[in-house]
């Protein structure tokens, strides 16, 4: 039982990261009906942005590790990635918005390949060690269940960001406009909503969340490299589909489910099956409930 709770704790921490990435997928899909394949790579850029920021601030050499410094690094990398998201949307996705969805998908794959190879060229292909912006400590939750303060930070930061996002979407004018664009883009445009600007904001927020995930991963698994975004990106998308794509709470639940089930597989079956479990769950869910756990079934119009 102790083993189970230990894997559960690890899974929740890891799942929060999936959830953060999945939010970006689900928001972009909600507004554009586009699988933003480059999203996992934005998360990678977020990790590297945090790495370089922490280095520039001299963490571990000039300055002491502290939560304040960590917050600066986190917000900085979120800002950089928000900018990156806006650029990607403006330069790559906007020109193909009126083309077929397949064209947009291939463009997204192109952007993904670009970010990966750009990363290899600029950051180097070898893994980098993420500086310790918060001094590591181990905390005993219960008899034999150990978590690090990093894992707790991951969960707390994720919860704060998700609550903030939910409030933003539910309570603000811009949030309302985002929901309107997701509901029906042309109708929203006719109601005077600046659709282009809302889409830009959606990309900025989604990319900032991915950057936060990148920072948090750097904190817990301090080895970062330019191809680190591929698998988490795909799995976060699966998490978004699992929860019901387009649904914000669905992405959170999907991400957590994904993280927990992965760690249970690692703990009880074999770590080699870790990458398969995500897809097994996905297929099972889609065959039983094609719209995902929290997704709405859309009736097909003839």
């Amino acid at each position: 039982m102790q083993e189970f709770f230990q894997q559960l704790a690890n899974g929740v921490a890891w799942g929060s990261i999936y959830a953060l990435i999945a939010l970006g997928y689900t928001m972009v899909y909600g507004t554009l009906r586009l699988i933003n394949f480059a999203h996992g790579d934005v998360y990678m850029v977020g990790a590297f942005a945090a790495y370089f920021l922490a280095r520039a601030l001299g963490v571990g050499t000039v300055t002491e590790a502290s939560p304040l410094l960590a917050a600066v690094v986190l917000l900085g990398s979120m800002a950089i990635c928000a900018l990156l998201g806006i650029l990607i949307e403006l330069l790559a996705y906007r020109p193909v918005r009126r083309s077929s969805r397949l064209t947009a998908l291939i463009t997204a794959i192109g952007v993904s390949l670009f970010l990966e190879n750009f990363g290899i060229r600029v950051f180097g292909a070898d893994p980098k060690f993420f500086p310790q912006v918060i001094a590591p400590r181990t905390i005993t939750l219960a008899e034999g269940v150990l978590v690090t303060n990093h894992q707790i930070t991951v969960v707390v930061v994720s919860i704060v960001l998700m609550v903030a996002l939910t409030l933003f979407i539910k309570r603000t004018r811009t949030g309302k406009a985002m929901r309107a664009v997701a509901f029906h883009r042309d109708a929203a445009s006719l109601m005077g909503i600046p659709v282009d600007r809302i889409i830009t904001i959606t990309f900025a927020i989604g990319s900032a969340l991915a950057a936060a995930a990148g920072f948090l991963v750097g904190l817990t698994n301090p080895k970062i490299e330019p191809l680190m975004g591929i698998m988490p990106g795909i799995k976060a998308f699966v998490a978004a589909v699992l929860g019901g794509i387009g649904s914000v709470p669905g992405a959170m639940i999907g991400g957590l489910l994904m993280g927990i089930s992965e760690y249970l597989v690692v703990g009880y079956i074999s770590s080699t099956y870790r990458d398969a479990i995500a897809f097994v769950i996905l297929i099972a869910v889609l065959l039983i409930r094609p719209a995902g756990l929290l997704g709405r079934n859309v009736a097909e119009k003839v």
Partner: protein
Amino acid sequence: MLWRRVAGGVIAIAIVWAVEWAASSVLNPYIYRVLVLCSINVILALSLNLVNGITGQFSIGHAGFMAVGAYASAAYTVYAVPVWFGASAGAGWLAAGAFLIAILVGGLVSALAGFLVGLPSMRLRGDYLAIVTLGFGEIIRVIILNIDAVGGARGFAGVPTRTNLAWVLGGAWLTFAVIRNLMKSYHGRALLAIREDEIAAEALGVPTTRYKVTAFVIGAFFAGVAGALFSHYTYLHTNSFTFMKSIEVVIMVVLGGMGSLTGSILGATLLTALPELLRFASSERLIIYSLLLIALMIARPQGILGQRELTLPFRRRRSESRPTLAA
């Protein structure tokens, strides 16, 4: 007109072997290798086009079926051939015959996998279908990675090299012929109808699910053939069949033009050659490649050929009589 077909086949085989003989004696090994891999990619792109371009179902798990074909045929060659054909099956006609069977084994096992995957997946549409096929592709890869008899994470060593340019050209030609003839047949029309409007096709009495699964199975068969040709050519490891490989094939199909068979050939050739041609730029080549891809999608979203086909000048009269689909 059976004799014409038989004669055509004999001539085609003769041409293919002549090309192989000429290529292996004239070209340097590097270009020869690129040509072989290029032809394998042509088979993959054509077979995926049957599912994605002609039937209009978006699958991005093609590498999984390639992997099934590659490993099934390699396992057959390594474990079954020495027992059934004896140790003398190392060269000559006997080896060629054993290899032909290996290719068929690869294709058939892959087709079976395609049936098992296609039957449940084909109920889904659009992005959901895409993500489920991607999922199945990855599951297949992870399962193979965990089978120790085929090497697991070490890779499958000891598969003899049997593939040469003649085999892959023959394979590509056969794939093209089968899919082209299928497309022009009664059944091909049903597939096109499903692409154009699935609900209308269903209303007109086309059993859509059966046709979609059939197209998927045929696509998987040829992906398996491509896998068999691949596994008897170069070192076999599951890393060759990640979802990036599936994506690569999708890009070939979309770039050439969805639904255009000659487009798939063009797309596969271009995308295999492009990274090689960009070798002068060494570390920047993949950056250039990705930027070219984005630029092409913005400039020509329907792919290079769209839905049109390239035809040889002296064949044009015949192909003009083909009924065209309303856009």
